[in-house]
Structure formats: structure tokens, C-alpha cells
């Protein structure tokens, strides 16, 4: 790494080397049985240079071949963006715990036991369901150095556990599932299995639903599958900079219902999306995005922030090994004080959305979402009466979240990067056969 940086400094004004190496052990169950045990080692180094004022970039998996890496970065710098930012000279970061050495020492047997326990519980409830389960542990090391003396080093542990079941009766298929992840080893399967059993219970009966606008409750999973993606795109500083975000010029203005609060938070201890600094070495911070319905911030990396005449929010991320770009860490929606049951009780006729399929296909930038209700329940006179099928919903995030009837007190993690309660909206367009 030091050698790459030294070589790069000979031909460039500024340089930064970023290295990530990971060791991951996934254990996978298919069709109720243990099927695959894997071990994945990988590492790569990314070199970013500023040469003639322009950004050059190259990555390689081979540390040994540093001259080729430098040459490739130099070639790309001829055409690169003009660098508007300064690399950070920092080396002191907030203490954010993301590594638990206990993850490394979880044995393969223990991981297998967790998977077996999950499948046994779900099949104990519904014997003819076919389950897939995954248990995985990973250790990731990040190392950043740059020509301004900045450097960051940290290690992260991630443990994840999940189960998905499909229940097939003739050509009728039901998909249920839940997963959890943490920087600590997960030793309990109860909560995950419990969530799956809850879905199976609610889906036991079938119900039909009319084609018309209806009140709707998004469960945390339903909300994550339907509404989060358009928001992530809209709050991305790059979308804002290019004038493509519908909320880009609404900073400080009320856009959503005043019950809605949203922030991006990479500082929570032992969460998989947390880290002491982003992929450019900028310290992590909690960034409020919506406060009382008003837009308060957008998410930035160094270059985008410089172009927008603002500061990086520590959201520079190198997805798939590319140049740093703004990306959310963990989206947190503030819980309210209405229980899920209270929401359902309030509905005369309506829909609970547990999982929407294909919501991210439409005009995401405009906030439109539309999808098939893969798992959802009909509500009649304050009671869930059964699962709906062949049903589509369509709406617009900005219209939908302008008026929220209630926000749930049931906030929880969905996947590693979204924490949200249930959300009760007065009306959404439903189409059904």
C-alpha cells in the first residue's frame, strides 16, 4: 500500500490508496437441508489520483503489480472529472464499535445448528413448507492512506442469519421470510422464526380485495420494499446536484407529513452499516434528512459536496469497487406511538402490505412506485381476514407521505440498513383481479 502511494505520488499531485480485504464463511441450507459450506477470501486495492487537476482511478486484486495500477490510473486521469475536493489529513475518528472478535470464533457446527433450529421451528408450524436458510460470518478490514497524511484503519465483523420459506399448493405459492444481522454473533433464532410464523398465520386464509383506493398499512418490511428506494435516490447529493431530485430545491421546506422524521446513521454500535469513517476517510456522523416533515440535509461524498459548495456528510461509498459516490449507510425512521393492532383496528376496509415486489422498476426519481403485493393482508372491520393475491398497488411516495394517518411504535431492523416502524396511510390505489 505504502509503495503504491509512493509510486503514485511521483506522477500525481495527490493520491489515495484504499484497500479492503474480507474473509467470509456462508453456510447455506436448501430444500430444508444443509447444502453448501463456503469460504470466501478476497481483497482489492483502489488507487485514486489527482493528476493535472483531474481524477484518475484504477483497481486491482493483485497488490504486487503496483506499476500497472499506477499506469491505469494515469490513463484514466486524462479524461477524469476535475477534482474539486481535498483529501482529508485526519487520522482521529469517533469510537464506533463494529468489531466483535467472538464472530471469528463461532464454529461451523454452531452455524449449522442455528440454521437447523430455524428450519425446524418453521417446519414445526407448517410441515409442508420448503425452507432455505443462510448463516454467515465475515471479517472485513479497511485500510485507507492518502498523500495528505490521512489514514484510517478498522476491522468489522458481520454475522447474519436468515430463513425463507415457500409453501406451494397446486400453483398457489406463498413466500415468507426474515433475516437479521449484527456485528455480534447471533445466537437466538426465536425472533426470526417468530416473525416467519406470524406471516404464515396471517396468510392462512385467502381474501379478495376490490379495485379502488383503500387505506393501507405498510409493515416495516412492506415499507422497506415499497418506499425506501425512491427516498434513497432523492436524498443522494448527486441526484440533487444534477437537478434530478424532486426535493432538491426544497431544503428547509415541509414536504412530508410533520410526523415523519428520517435520518442516516452510521454511528450506531455494532450495526453492520456502521463504521468510524466512510470510504474516503471522512468521520461518520448522524445526518438528519427529514425533521418534522421538512427536508434538512442531503447525503454527500467529498467531490459531490465540493461541487455543491457544501461539506461531505461522510457518505462516500465505493460500491462494487468504483469511485466513491454518495450512498446511505442506515436509514432510520423515527417510531410513533400507535401500535400495529391499533392501526388495523382503525380500518374498515383496507390492506396491509408485508412485501411488495417490483416496486423499484418504475419512475423512481419521480417517486412513483408500483408493484405486485407478494405478501399482503386484507383488513375488514378492524381485523386481518386473510391474504390477498393478484393484487397491485400504485402510488407516489411524495403524495403518500404528505399525509400519514399514524406511525407505528413497532420500529425494527429490516435487513441491515433500514430501521422503520409500520406506517398507516389514508389511501392508496389498489388494483386486483
Amino acid at each position, binding site marked *: 500500500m505504502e509503495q503504491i502511494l509512493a509510486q503514485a505520488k511521483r506522477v500525481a499531485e495527490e493520491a489515495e490508496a484504499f484497500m479492503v480485504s474480507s474473509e467470509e464463511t456462508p453456510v447455506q441450507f436448501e430444500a430444508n437441508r444443509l447444502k453448501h459450506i463456503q469460504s470466501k477470501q478476497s*481483497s482489492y486495492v483502489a488507487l485514486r489520483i489527482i493528476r493535472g487537476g483531474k481524477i484518475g482511478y484504477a483497481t486491482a486484486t493483485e497488490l504486487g503489480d503496483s506499476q500497472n495500477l499506477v499506469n491505469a490510473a494515469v490513463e484514466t486521469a486524462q479524461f477524469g472529472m476535475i477534482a474539486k475536493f481535498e483529501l482529508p489529513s485526519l487520522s482521529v475518528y469517533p469510537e464506533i464499535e463494529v468489531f466483535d472478535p467472538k464472530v471469528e470464533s463461532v464454529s461451523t457446527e454452531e452455524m449449522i445448528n442455528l440454521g437447523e433450529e430455524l428450519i425446524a421451528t418453521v417446519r414445526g408450524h407448517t410441515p409442508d413448507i420448503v425452507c432455505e436458510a443462510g448463516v454467515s460470518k465475515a471479517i472485513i478490514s479497511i485500510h485507507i492512506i492518502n498523500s495528505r497524511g490521512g489514514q484510517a484503519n478498522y476491522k468489522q465483523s458481520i454475522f447474519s442469519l436468515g430463513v425463507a420459506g415457500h409453501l406451494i399448493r397446486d*400453483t398457489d*405459492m406463498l413466500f415468507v421470510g426474515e433475516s437479521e444481522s449484527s456485528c455480534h454473533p447471533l445466537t437466538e433464532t426465536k425472533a426470526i422464526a417468530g416473525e416467519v410464523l406470524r406471516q404464515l398465520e396471517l396468510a392462512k386464509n385467502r381474501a379478495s380485495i376490490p379495485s379502488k383506493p383503500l387505506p393501507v398499512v405498510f409493515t416495516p418490511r412492506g415499507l422497506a420494499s415499497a418506499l425506501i428506494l425512491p427516498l434513497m435516490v432523492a436524498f443522494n447529493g448527486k441526484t440533487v446536484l444534477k437537478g434530478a431530485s424532486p426535493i432538491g430545491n426544497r431544503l428547509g421546506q415541509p414536504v412530508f407529513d410533520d410526523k415523519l422524521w428520517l435520518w442516516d446513521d452510521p454511528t450506531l454500535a455494532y450495526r453492520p452499516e456502521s463504521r468510524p469513517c466512510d470510504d474516503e476517510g471522512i468521520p461518520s456522523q448522524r445526518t438528519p434528512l427529514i425533521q418534522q416533515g421538512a427536508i434538512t440535509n442531503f447525503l454527500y461524498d467529498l467531490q459531490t459536496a465540493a461541487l455543491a459548495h457544501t461539506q461531505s456528510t461522510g457518505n462516500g461509498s465505493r460500491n462494487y469497487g468504483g469511485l466513491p459516490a454518495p450512498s446511505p449507510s442506515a436509514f432510520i425512521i423515527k417510531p410513533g406511538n400507535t401500535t400495529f393492532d391499533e392501526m388495523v383496528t382503525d380500518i374498515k376496509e383496507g390492506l396491509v402490505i408485508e412485501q411488495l*415486489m417490483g416496486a423499484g422498476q418504475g*419512475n423512481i426519481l419521480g417517486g412513483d412506485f408500483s408493484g*405486485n403485493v407478494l405478501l399482503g393482508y386484507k383488513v375488514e372491520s378492524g381485523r386481518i381476514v386473510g391474504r390477498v393475491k*393478484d393484487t397491485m398497488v400504485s402510488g407516489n411516495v411524495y403524495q403518500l407521505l404528505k399525509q400519514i394517518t399514524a406511525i407505528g411504535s413497532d420500529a425494527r431492523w429490516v435487513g441491515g440498513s433500514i430501521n422503520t416502524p409500520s406506517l398507516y396511510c389514508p389511501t392508496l*390505489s389498489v388494483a386486483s383481479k
Partner: protein
Amino acid sequence: MTTTQAIAHQLAEVINRYSTDYIEARFEESQTSYISYRGRELDSIGRASAIGGNVRAMVKGAWGFVSFNDFNELPGRVELAIRQAQFAGNEESQLAPAEPVVDTSAMAQDKNPVVIPLAEKKQLLDEYNDIIWHTPKLQTAIIDYGDSYKKVIFLNSLGSYIEQDRADVTLRLTAIATQDNEVQQAGLSLGSRGDFSLIQGRHQQVGQMAQLAVELLSAPQVKGGEYTVVLDPVLAGVFAHEAFGHLSESDFVYENDRVRQIMTLGRRFGSDELNIVDNATIPGLRGSYKYDDEGVPATKTYLITEGKLVGRLHSRETAAKMKEKPTGNARAINYCYPPIVRMTNTYIEPGAASFDELIGDIKEGIYVKNWYGGTTSMEMFTFSAGEAYMIRHGKLAEPLRPVVLTGNVFTTLMNIDGIGNDLEMNQGGGCGKGEQVPLPVSNGSPHIRIRHCLVGGR
């Protein structure tokens, strides 16, 4: 001999020393370059090189898999893969027979697009970007270009040793138009098997795409409900891939008795006119290859013939478990992953109807074109059209906002009642399954007509 070749030869000797049911290894060397624009300006340009490998072992019906890009301690990694498989295995290993293949002739078949100077690629993208930016009311554009060239060496304990290469070019353009607080977008996806010239000269198409984004601003949203829809070849190809193709992947079928019942060979899925094929043997398409990632030769597999299910896609394991022949459809996106059952080039074969005949007797329907994406849960699918028009009294009428179509696979296939005579292959897509995304595939179809299709709207 390259380093990778030397390592592969060395390993070929090592793996024969172990008594496992089966063991294989794959080594890859790849180069990629990419250029993207966000708005007027170039956003990122880069080059990447990667080298890595994996070892996969089967013991008593279970798999161990180890991937790495550190080539030290190779024998240790082989042993780890075997230990993992031993740990998990508790039944009989079943793999369909495969002939050992020694073939290095499939190397150096593709043009390497990565070596084309970045300046030349950027020149083309600048031209396309200019066209988009000269369109009035256009707010911004997104352009993502990527190419890759990969050499793959495969060897296994049957004595196979195969060298192949694969080149890939993809270009995705999106034009974004805004007015007041409305945002609309239109996209174009292009791709080729490494041939850069196939994405050149598309200036007119790019201009039409930009114009469409602007026109959508004033287009109405369709009223949700059931319609007769006509799909253009691009979207019908996505439909064939998403709605039916994934159901033909036997890893979903082979260990699930319920699904096996649904996917019984001979079962009727559509009208006599319907024929669906997966074919990895067509030269020059993005989904094509000579051997799959288990060293099995590529095949042309009929999935549906005259409306009836006649075949499915297999790896060696799924073929053995279903007592069918392997089809050479085990593919991995790269060395970090084991191969799984995937499609290649999937298409609906052409029928007899002209476009005018397909729409001629539709009183009120929707013509849907182009592609945003699509996904499936096996039984249910959704796919979204980038472009839509009302059909009124047998004629194309006003443009609509993009629509999402959804439905039950089984009833929708039955509801196809018209198949055009104009098959086109679309090279612009990429397929995702589990974590392995995007895998180069192509889809194709003629225009098709579907009755009673559920369309989302307000």
C-alpha cells in the same frame, strides 16, 4: 504460459490425489473499463483488473466451496473445500455423467473491447450525451458504459481442462426530463458480446429516447385494471425470461415435490403457437458459450413446444436428481461464486401474425414497449414497460406514462393469443439470481398479444 495457466496445471495434478466424489477448480483473469456520466459531466472513468480462483468439492451430496484471490497455500484451500463438503455431506452424491473435455480452442474467440483506447469510447459517449442535452426540457442524463474481457480456465477431477474467453460490452442511457415538480425518464439498454461497433451509430435511437422522456411529461397515467396488451419484442423477451424462464431453472424444481408436480413435462402452459427456447449455442450473443462453468457443452433446449412443457435447464446435479440430461446451464458470475442454474439466450420463437394483425381487433388495449426491469416470485411476476400507448379501435393512440404489468405466470402464458412474425434479440439486459448479478444474458421475442393482463395505475 501465463501465471494462471501454470497454477491451473499444477492444481490439476493436486486434485487427483484426493478421494472425493468430485472436485473442480476455476481460475479467472479479467480486465474491465467503465465510463459514466451523471448529467453533462463525466462522472467516473476507471480501469480494473482482477485475478482469482475457486475450488469446489462434493462429498456425500454436499458442496464445499472456497474462493480466493491470494494464490498462496493453494493445497490448503483445496483441503478446506473438501473438509467443508465432508462436514455437510450425509447422502449419496449425484451428478449427471459428463465427458472429460480437454479444449483450449475456445480461447481468443472474442474481440477484447477493454484494449480500445478510453479516448475512443469517451468520444462516442460524448456524441450520445450531446444529443440528449440538445433536447429541450431535458433535465439531466445518466450514461453507464462498461466493458470486460475475461479468460477462464476450468478443470475437474474427471480430467477436464478447458480454456475459454468471454467479452462483454454494455451501455445504458437514461434521459430525465422535468417540468414543474414532475420528473419523467426514458432509457435505452444496449449490449454486445465484446463487439464495440454494435453500440456505435445509435445516434438516432438515443435522440428518440431523449424525446420520449420529454413527451412523457404531458402523457396521462393509465387507469389501473385488466387490458389486452401487445408487447414489443424487447418487453416480450423480458417476459419470456422473467415469467417463464426462471421457472425452468431446475434448482428451484429438483428438490421440491410440489414444484415438480407443477412442472411436469407435457403439461400445457400455452396455446399451440407458443414455443420457448433457451439456446447458448448461437454465436456472438451475450448469453452464449462453448462450455458452462461445470465443463458441460452448451446446448439448445426447448422449454415449451406447441404450448407444452418439454424441457428445463440443468446443472449436472439437478439433471442427475431429476434423471434428465444435463443441458450445460450451470453458470457463475465470477470466481467468487459457485455455478448455479441460469438461462443463456432465451426467446419465444416467431409465429405468423403481423403487428397490424395483432392490434387490429383490439377495441381498447395497451401497446407496451421497452424495458425498465422485471422480477418474479415464480408464480407471480411484474415487469415494467418504458413506453406505453393506448390502442383504440385497432390503432395506436395516445402515449401513456410508463406502466407496470403484473400477473400470474400460469394464467398469463395461457392468455397469450397472438404471436408475431418479427423475432428480435435484445442484448441490453443482465440477469440477477441470488447474489449473482448481473449475468450476461439475452432475451428475445416477436411482438406478442396477451389477454386480461393486470396493469397498475391510478
